């Protein structure tokens, strides 16, 4: 469920309950609008720290989250806004966090790259590449050890497979029968560098196969293929207690970080390539197919309401973040028990 502070009149918005397709559209739409908002606020300098935007990659968490419960555990990396929102995370609290406000998810301790919200099962995201991967394997193992119904999700980029801990973690996931969905968002670029310059062909599949882990590759711009693959994978993880890799071919429309297109960064990326991916946008395709006049109207008013909430949060956060912090606030919770 998306958060109440967004769906204020949720009962009016019966499309949410109508079908997975509508929920896909709504989750993707919310993430897209949120990221566009952040992109603009970063451009004009209101957001101070780095933001890694998910525009173009929203379809993946929009499908994954359809099959998760609040007691499942999700771990992410630097580009995690969409993953968090898709779980029903609060756009206001996330925006406040990104802005460094004391009303943010962690009072501005982490901002954009460190998102933590246990309420929706988002157990943490960090910018060290693959830093949360083996934690997620451990979390999936813990659920196996306890014999409960929960699973864990690790979101990784294609660059993650170049880290040694991913090889170790895949091997351990198999040995421990960790109940983990490993979602590889392959957008072809690790920061600026193209996949072909970093990895032999099909490394993600080959490594998964080598470690005896089930693997599927999907086009994340094809909703039906993506949705079905993830649905099946999550069903198998829950029922057969196995790890599972789904490599999702996707594309980010913005540069690695912040609002620019960064066409000049990266070896093969061109405006034509970006344009071609934009034309295949899964959100727009689904909107074309599923929209009727009433739905579009509702979506319009939703967008207006959403932007109002974000602007209100922004105004408040700009004032709140100017308030001086105490030493106690700065240092509390360094240790859990003191």
């Amino acid at each position, binding site marked *: 469920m998306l958060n109440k502070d967004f769906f204020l009149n949720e009962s009016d918005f019966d499309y949410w309950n109508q079908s997975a397709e509508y929920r896909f559209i709504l989750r993707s739409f919310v993430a897209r609008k949120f990221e566009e908002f952040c992109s603009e606020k970063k451009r004009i300098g209101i957001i101070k720290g780095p933001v890694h935007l998910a525009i173009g990659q929203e379809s993946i968490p929009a499908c994954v989250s359809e099959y998760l419960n609040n007691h499942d*555990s999700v771990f992410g990396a630097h580009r995690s806004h969409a993953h968090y929102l898709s779980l029903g995370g609060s756009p206001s609290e996330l925006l406040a966090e990104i802005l460094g406000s004391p009303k943010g998810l*962690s*009072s501005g*301790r*982490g901002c954009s790259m*460190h998102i*933590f919200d*246990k309420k929706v099962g988002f*157990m*943490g995201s*960090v910018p*060290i590449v693959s*830093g*949360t*991967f*083996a*934690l*997620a*394997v*451990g*979390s*999936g*193992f*813990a*659920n196996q*050890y*306890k014999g409960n119904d929960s699973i*864990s999700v690790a979101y990784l980029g294609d660059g993650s497979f170049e880290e*040694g*801990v991913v090889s*170790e*973690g895949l*091997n*351990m996931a198999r*040995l*421990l029968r*960790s109940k983990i969905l490993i979602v590889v968002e392959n957008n072809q670029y690790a920061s600026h560098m193209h996949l072909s310059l970093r990895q032999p062909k099909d490394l993600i599949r080959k490594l998964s196969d080598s470690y005896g882990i089930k693997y599927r590759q999907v086009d994340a711009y094809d909703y039906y293929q993506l949705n079905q693959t993830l649905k099946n994978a999550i069903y198998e993880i829950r029922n057969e207690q196995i790890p599972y890799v789904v490599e999702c071919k996707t594309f980010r429309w913005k540069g690695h970080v912040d609002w620019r297109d960064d066409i000049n960064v990266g070896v093969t990326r061109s405006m034509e390539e970006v344009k071609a991916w934009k034309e295949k946008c899964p959100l727009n395709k689904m909107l074309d197919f599923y929209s009727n006049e009433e739905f579009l109207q509702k979506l319009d008013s939703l967008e207006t309401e959403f932007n109002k909430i974000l602007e209100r949060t922004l105004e408040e956060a700009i004032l709140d973040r100017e308030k001086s912090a105490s030493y106690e606030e700065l240092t*509390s*919770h*360094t*240790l*859990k*028990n*003191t």
Partner: protein
Amino acid sequence: MKYQESIRKAFYDCLKESDDVFVIGQGLWSPWYVGKTMDKLDEIFGKNRLIDTPISESAVTAIGIGASIENLYPIIVHPRMDFALYALDAIINQSAKWSYLSEGKISAGPLFRLIINRKGEQGAQHSQSLQSIFAHIPGLEVLMPVSSQQAYDMFVYGTFTKNPVIYIDDRAFYEEEEEVVANQVDVYNTKFKNSFYAKKFSNQGDILVISIGDASLTVEEVRKDIKKTGQNFKHFTITSLNQIDLLKGGIQEEILNAKHLIIAENSWPVCSISSEILALVLEKGLNKNFESIPKRFNLPNCPAPSAKRLEDIFYLAKDDLAKLIIEKI
């Protein structure tokens, strides 16, 4: 009870106390290289709770941390501290940050058991005493027990607290004996005890020796030798290394009353626990009654050698320490 037996008892009691305790690390199904500290635990509690692993320190450590996030109580074992360096990202970048970044809502606090095993020509990558690296990091607790009772208490505490605890045991202590009161484990009320801050060996005389880790053994040997001549000195060991509390450890007054201070640590001098203690003494103005310049007694600034003839001049020599103390007397 021998130090190594008290560790085994702590393992046993923790595993018995809660099914949510499990142990993960290399060599657990054939734990011959951890002394007698883990004998037969896999047979008693099962291989699903004592998990022997591939040679993957980095992932194994992170998996333990992930299981702690899910509210289990993992004990992660690295039979040689040197090998745990592969897991520094998991320990320093992840585990130590989780409580802070989530404002205490999510914690990732397993017990990391790191073992030191030195001498015997083991060389540069089997002999390091790396407590300073961990003590530098906010968000970790670093404990280095020097007695059987401390070894037991700190282990139980480290297992059940939600803080990430670096528990460093040195095989030099394994045969040392002390009576151990094995308190009933209370999973839900594991408190950091005042006895974790320091261990008192003696408070006689004008000279104060503060030791860290297995330097305490060398210092005690010297004290016994000197005692035969009717002389004595004070000796305390600091055992909580990144939360040094001289007051709670009962050392502050002793430093203030001492005329001479020597700090002994079997590790390198730069950015060490011994330099930290000396800084604290100066910052707190505890050197008012000192009649000589405080002296640190550390390892030479080179990696640990293998050959015995080199080891002989590398590690803290009892005779050199004795000479230093006798000079002050």
